[in-house]
């Protein structure tokens, strides 16, 4: 836990320095139209970096969380089982879209993790995307990414 806390605080300090450099590419001083566009971000990034350093020093000087594991046993697996399919849905958005991707995600998760009976699994994983489709695409006319598969099914493209 302590190593994780130290590493994370270190990462924040590095990020802060990167932010400062990015902000400093624009004028950070007084310009013809008042404070330059880089002024606010630059000083914010400086404050962020300093706060990160303070956290780093305080974490270093305390023994809090020494020897504790960062995650309880088996938690890695459970987190990846939820998170990786999320990443998968977004990664394949171009092909599957939100509705088919959501259908597969619901199907897989309710069946494999929840071990619910098939009728419930099918009802939920077809019903939910269908309901969302009707609400967003039909009634509110807010187009969501439908994906190439659904588009070719719907419009024959």
């Amino acid at each position: 836990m302590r190593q994780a806390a130290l590493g994370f605080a270190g990462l924040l300090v590095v990020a802060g320095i990167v932010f400062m450099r990015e902000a400093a590419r624009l004028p950070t001083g007084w310009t013809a139209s008042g404070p330059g566009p880089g002024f606010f971000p630059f000083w914010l990034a400086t404050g962020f970096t300093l706060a990160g350093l303070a956290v780093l020093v305080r974490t270093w000087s305390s023994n809090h969380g020494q020897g504790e594991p960062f995650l309880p046993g088996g938690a890695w697996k459970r987190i990846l089982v939820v998170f990786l399919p999320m990443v998968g849905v977004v990664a394949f958005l171009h092909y599957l879209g939100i509705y088919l991707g959501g259908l597969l995600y619901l199907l897989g998760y309710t069946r494999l993790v929840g071990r619910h009976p098939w009728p419930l699994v099918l009802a939920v994983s077809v019903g939910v995307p269908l309901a969302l489709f009707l609400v967003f695409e039909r009634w509110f006319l807010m187009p969501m990414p439908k994906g190439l598969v659904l588009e070719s099914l719907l419009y024959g493209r």
Partner: protein
Amino acid sequence: MDPVRTFHDLLYGLAVAASPENLMVAVVGLLLGTAIGVLPGLGGTNGVALLLPLTFHLKPTAAIILLASVYWGAIFGGAITSILFRIPGEPWSVATMFDGYPLAKQGKPGVALTAAFTSSFIGAFVAIVLFTFFAPPLAELALKFGPPENFAVLLLAFATIAGLESGDPVKAVLMTFLGLLLATVGFDIVSGSPRMTFGSVALQSGVNFVIIAIGVFGLGEILLTVEEALRIEGLRARLSFRDVWETWKMFPRYVWTIIRSTLLGFWIGVLPGTGATPASFMSYGIARQFSPRGSRFGTGEVEGVVAPETAAHAAGVGALLPMVTLGIPGSPTAAVMLAGFFIWGLNPGPLLFQENREFVWGLIGSMYLANVIGVLIVLTLVPAFAAIVRIPFAILAPLITILCSIGAYAVNNQVLDLWIMLGSGLAGYLFKKLGYPLAPLVVALVLGDMTEQAFRQSLIMGQGSPAIFFTRPIAAFFLAAAIAVFLLPFARNVVRRARGGAVPAEAPGAAGS
């Protein structure tokens, strides 16, 4: 202004609003608005915008009643997913999550929902009364608030929020800086140059706080939940109307918070360009500082739901005031409604009260009726809403994820936002695990643009000298209050260390005095 005359006008307005046609329009608007509020990604602003074309066929009075009712419904509905799943249905219900979600997790979703709806109603109702009797003078006063005053008030908001979490104040400051930094991403309004984009074109439109909030709270919460075990603890939830009654019995205790939040929310709403979202955050932060129960905020304190909800709804009403009286929208949603005014052939401004008496007083009358009907509708549905938490986690988790994705995509219609959402979900999980508070991040992101604008305009007004913040009395007062509130958690730590440890973190109401 003559109160008798106003009262007479109000009765006329109520009669207009109670006509069968207008009443039906209000109910339809409320139901639609509640649904829009529940669905993340469909906000009050785009809900109103989407319905605007439908109003062309209605009479102006019915049209404004429809749009206003959608707005009220969305304010009621936004609290529902915040409390049940920690997904903000609306930007202004982010602060409601801080205590509403812990309450739901403790098996009391009915209490949290009732508290949210009831305080929304009270905030709105009192604000409507203020609106009815003091609209013109308040609108004039709001215009006296310049950039230095706005900046000082915003600083007070940050100070109160940074003092929110009982944890490490340095981490709270760090997260505030991070939120403000994220808010600067995208085009700079003054110079027009892209900032903090690292060369990415997609980032030029900026980082929307809704996406970050959905990520860190909605997804982050799912990751935290699976880390413990694969379930959400809501199964013990009681589902009955007894919750409603028992929550109401607690309300007299919160009378000061309600009064403070209503006045604060209403005033922030009246100020141009703000609206319900900053009002809800400020009210939460200030309630935490002043309430005797402040130290329990964030752990499922009913008062922590009451404060932001009261202010959000009061601000929603307040935002309509400068719109009707001066033609200046007080919030993004009000701006969309204002577009409607011109389409219906009306000119907002002082003359509107004289030239279109039916329209103005019909709108005011409908605010009274729509809020009474609205609170009755949502309170009847409390057991039904609370039942949602009984859905098994293996169904709820993917469902929440899909709703989060839709909500994040709807903001800008770009896939990059979904990656930002996933990234902030992971970041939110790590932040939470390592004791970095998330509330200051989101609040700073919400108020960031406004703060920078106020700051830059003030410096321009003062020709580069920060003295302008101290020479204007209202600004100086808020600035002093902000500094006092900001130093409070640090002082508390010093005192605790001096006394040798276990001192309960009490919030003495020292701010601003």
